[in-house]
């Protein structure tokens, strides 16, 4: 490790400094460490160890069958899902719910967030409402959503949209607040219209904050897929997980959880990719 290495070197250097103080000698090195480094392989190794450990543990009887599914059987579930095509039957409805609900929530959140950022009165009126809405557990509202939006796709979209909405609002108005005020003053000093300033300075300047809010918003949207599919869905990853749970089928439960986890990691990398493209102007 870089850091422990640095420590040893430092200690060694101190000894050198005190011992050879009299004769000419190189200055002791005391930098290094505290760097943001990574090693792609270690992640795979950790996953392999975890999975391998569970597999062996269960086969050897050290871990009860009720505690964890057998990883190889989880893999077999994936194979079956793939072969039978059931994967797509579950994945496509979930993806469309995620896409529609997430998009609705994100767009509404960005819109309201921008208004809050721009207009003091909107801020004063809506921020308390949004803060009050933020810590409300969405599953608690499930029975209401059925009445409000029916048991079809509507209530699923609405639940996911609501979950995405609140963090997006908070992130967006924070981002608008953080837009460099000198840039806005520059726009005014060139006599740009209010609308030009919003379009050309405020919104692009808020983009980094909005995108990092989107990261949180979409993670929540994925988490809410399960809650949304409690509402009368037959197909969908969330429904699949719930059904596996009700049959106490740990293998399928884990398979479903892994799919959501992969979906989350993918979404996050897509946003990372968009950030790298759209925010190329950042250092």
């Amino acid at each position: 490790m870089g850091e422990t290495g640095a420590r040893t070197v430092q200690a060694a250097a101190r000894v050198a400094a005190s011992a050879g103080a009299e004769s000419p000698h190189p200055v002791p090195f005391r930098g290094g460490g505290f760097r943001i480094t990574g090693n792609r392989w270690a992640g795979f190794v950790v996953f392999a160890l975890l999975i391998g450990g569970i597999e062996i543990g269960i086969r050897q009887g050290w871990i009860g069958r009720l505690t964890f599914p057998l990883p190889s059987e989880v893999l077999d579930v994936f194979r079956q899902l793939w072969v039978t095509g059931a994967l797509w039957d579950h994945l496509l409805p979930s993806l469309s719910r995620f896409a529609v609900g997430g998009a609705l929530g994100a767009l509404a959140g960005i819109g309201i967030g921008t208004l809050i950022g721009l207009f003091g009165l909107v801020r004063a009126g809506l921020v308390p409402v949004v803060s009050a809405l933020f810590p409300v557990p969405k599953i608690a509202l499930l029975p209401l959503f059925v009445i409000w939006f029916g048991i079809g796709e509507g209530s699923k979209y609405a639940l996911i949209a609501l979950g995405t909405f609140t963090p997006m609002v908070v992130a967006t108005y924070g981002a608008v607040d953080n837009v460099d005020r000198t840039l806005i003053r520059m726009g005014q000093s060139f006599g740009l219209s209010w609308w030009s300033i919003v379009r050309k300075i405020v919104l692009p300047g808020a983009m980094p904050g909005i995108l990092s809010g989107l990261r949180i918003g979409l993670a929540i949207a994925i988490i809410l897929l399960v809650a949304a599919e409690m509402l009368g869905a037959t197909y969908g990853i969330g429904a699949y997980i719930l059904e596996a749970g009700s049959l106490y089928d740990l293998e399928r439960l884990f398979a479903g959880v892994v799919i959501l986890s992969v979906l989350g990691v993918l979404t996050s990398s897509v946003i990372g990719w968009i950030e790298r493209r759209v925010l190329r102007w950042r250092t």
Partner: protein
Amino acid sequence: APALAQGTKLKVGALRFTSHSPSFIALERGYFAEAGLDVELEFFQAAQPMAVAIASGDVDYAMTAISGGLVNLADKGAIKVIGGALSEEPGIDGQKILASDAAFQEGVTAPGALDGRRFGMTTAGSSFHYMGSKMAKAEGIDMTFVPLQKVPAIIGALKTGQIDAWSIVPHIAKPVASGPEVHMIGSVVDYLPDYQVTTIFTSTENAGDRALTEGYLGAVTRGISDYNSAMIDRAGGEAGVDAMVDLIHKYVYTDRERERAAPSIINGTMRINEGATLNVASVRDQLEWFQSEGLVDAGISLDQLIDGSFVETVGS
């Protein structure tokens, strides 16, 4: 029902349980179509959202156990019970009382030994809560009721000995008790001999449309007759059972091959009331129990809950 225009659209709520077979049969065998109904089945994961969906008008008719939530929705004038379905009946395999292995080893081999122990349920006001309470009252014992929201969580808790007992329909009870972790220690029917387990219900609005509701009930009752005669009376012999299993397998245990699904389907067989007869006495008992527990408003009358004008009633 000639009063109905051909192709009246209707949504029927269902769970993927064998107890919902009459709806599957009526659909598959065209009884709904003959009644002029164009039925679409809407599947649910649990009974509670089904009641709400009836109230919101997303679903027209459904079958489920009476729960506190259903009574409250009836109190708000949203839904009505219009018929009976599954009943406990002495002599027929009904719902089972299960005990965890730990409790069993400590001597809980019969429901009477459950004094001071933990009984699982989904939520307060569910049918599990009702069954457990009535059983405890009959045995003169005291139990703690543990709400675990969902059936899987209850099964998990039971298997690991974190709750001591639970009651559940036979097609779940039998596979769960087949392992070493859970034991069957009694039957619900011993405590609630004529328990009206599930009922047919609809929105108040639909109940006002006599032609529609009669049409629906007419078709479902034909499904009930077919089911009872094939699965319980075995009128068609093994071939009749096989044909019925084939039909039900289209809706239940669809993810398993037929050979593995068949025993579970057959295991789950329970009699469904011929003609959707409604046991009003049992319903009244349930309502009074909910009221005594403070789960529903004490002012609710039986008439707010049921509309007995469509089917034969007993015990009223």
